[in-house]
């Protein structure tokens, strides 16, 4: 069986002004883009291919879903004219549809299903025809299956017309209310009513009240209260003493200190009351703001500070290096290796000469204490290839690609790592949390202080490639 999703622009146009910059099919429902719920259902129903057709632009959706490899189902895309009727739309897709059983999802609809049900068998036994319909669309089967029986059994499914913000908000709250979600929700869940993503930093004095769904790279500061019924998107910062309940916070949003977000949707610097649809755009960064990934002026200053620091450390290390390096080299305790590491730019790598000093004898201990193993890397800071402080360089190999992908948004390959400065474990998820924290809160002054701390710490290890 194949699935054909037909979405008309007029059915989702209402969402565009509310969440500008997000394609309506990618609007997150409980931190999962809407289209993914449709893809999940198509797979559950037994589809082995999916085609998405619309009379509106699909480039953003195409970029996100690509060829469907993430879900293990080939996804193709097509278009039709707004004036086309169903017959014409099916005709335009006849090559995709020919000779196959087709599950058509027509409309901007949320399909309420339960992942526990065996929809594959239920659909296989279903005869051709409409399965479910509502005023804004339908779910239907065309073509016959070998297993078809005359089945009048009601399928454990229902359709929800996504036609207002209130419906969207209530749906999110409904999904939150399941102790075990009938849908696949991102994040991990070790207890009912709770899904938490990766790199979530929750202050000891913060309170999390279930049900909640929290995305990746979220920071919840001291004294904050999250929940009940809160959806926190990825890359969100909830600042001190703030409360978020019965609300949805979209990704890349900063919620300022001492605020109360209740029965609201916060998306960047937009605050929306779902029931009335009234929204305000905050001009005030102290209250609510979008988190921007690039701060060009600060980055420039930071880069200059890093170069000056590198130069200073080179000056300090030069004499000890010239004295100790030949001795360690002769003793065989100065071990160099050249490896490829990920850079800050997506998909790019750089070759670095890293050094390991075998800690045996007084000379090698002095060399390690002076961080002479980092001496050669400091020149990469001067050329702008490395930062002086940031994340420990990640070796570019297949084993580490998944780890790198998780850190990509904030990773900054550096000579010293924030984790070293804080004397946290220099590997594993704890290191990632520390590095992520400082990457978000980093500023040139803090970098100076952290570099000095890291330089003065005695034991450094560049992770083995």
């Amino acid at each position, binding site marked *: 069986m194949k699935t054909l999703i037909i979405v008309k622009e007029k059915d989702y146009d209402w969402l565009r002004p509310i969440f500008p910059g997000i394609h309506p099919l990618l609007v997150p429902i409980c931190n999962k883009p809407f289209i993914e719920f449709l893809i999940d259902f198509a797979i559950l129903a037994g589809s082995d291919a999916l085609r998405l057709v619309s009379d509106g632009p699909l480039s953003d959706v195409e970029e996100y879903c690509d060829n469907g490899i993430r879900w293990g189902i080939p996804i193709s895309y097509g278009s039709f004219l707004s004036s086309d009727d169903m017959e014409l739309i099916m005709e335009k897709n006849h090559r995709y549809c020919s000779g196959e059983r087709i599950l058509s999802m027509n409309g901007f609809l949320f399909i309420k299903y339960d992942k526990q049900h065996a929809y594959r068998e239920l659909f296989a036994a279903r005869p051709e025809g409409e399965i479910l319909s509502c005023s804004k669309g339908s779910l239907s089967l065309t073509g016959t299956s070998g297993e078809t029986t005359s089945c009048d059994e009601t399928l454990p499914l229902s359709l929800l017309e996504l036609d207002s913000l209130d419906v969207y908000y209530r749906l999110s709250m409904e999904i939150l209310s399941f102790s075990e979600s009938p849908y696949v929700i991102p994040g991990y869940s070790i207890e009912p009513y709770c899904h938490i993503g990766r790199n979530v930093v929750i202050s000891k004095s913060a309170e999390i009240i279930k049900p909640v769904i929290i995305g990746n790279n979220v920071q919840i500061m001291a004294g904050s209260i999250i929940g009940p019924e809160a959806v926190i998107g990825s890359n969100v910062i909830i600042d001190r003493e703030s409360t978020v309940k019965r609300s949805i916070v979209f990704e890349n949003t900063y919620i300022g200190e*001492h605020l109360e977000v209740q029965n609201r949707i916060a998306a960047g610097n937009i*605050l929306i009351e779902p029931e009335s649809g009234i929204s*305000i755009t905050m001009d005030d960064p*102290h*209250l609510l703001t979008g988190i921007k990934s690039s701060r060009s002026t600060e980055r420039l200053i930071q880069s200059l500070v890093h170069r000056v620091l590198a130069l200073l450390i080179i000056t300090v290390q030069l004499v000890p290096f010239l004295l100790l390096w030949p001795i360690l080299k002769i003793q065989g305790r100065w071990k160099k290796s050249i490896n490829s590491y990920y850079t800050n730019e997506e998909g790019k790598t750089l070759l670095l000469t890293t050094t390991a000093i075998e800690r045996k004898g007084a000379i090698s201990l002095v060399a390690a204490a002076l961080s002479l193993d980092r001496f050669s890397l400091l020149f990469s800071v001067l050329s702008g290839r490395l930062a002086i402080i940031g994340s420990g360089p990640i070796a570019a190999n297949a084993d580490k690609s998944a780890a790198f992908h998780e850190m990509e948004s904030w990773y900054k390959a550096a000579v010293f790592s924030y984790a070293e400065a804080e004397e946290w474990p220099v590997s594993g998820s704890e290191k990632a949390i520390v590095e992520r924290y400082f990457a978000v809160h980093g500023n040139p002054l803090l970098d100076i202080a952290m570099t000095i701390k890291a330089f003065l710490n005695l034991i450094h290890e560049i992770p083995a490639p």
Partner: protein
Amino acid sequence: MTFHVDTSTGKTLGIVDLSGRLDAANSSDLLKTFAQWQQQTNLFIFNCAKLDLIDSSGLGAIVSCLRKALERNGELKLSGLSPKVSMVFELTKASKLFSIFPDTGSAIQSF
């Protein structure tokens, strides 16, 4: 912003009509003029019916006016908050500090 005195209830009430934006650009003006209005009364109603937007500076100025009024055993009530302005008051929990009325008439009657 304009100021006038209402004595219909037998008390001298200072009615301040706020309009447009109340933000960092004009919140200091409110604080300065509020000190002058306090020479006439310490019972105030800020009519926000024509206030389109308020930010944290504006909120800070209104809270500061409330504090100054309370210091002299006065009161400051708000009226006619638009849904958008009301959202900012709720977001910042400032709504818990003030008595808020749907219109100036009901605010006057409350004194």
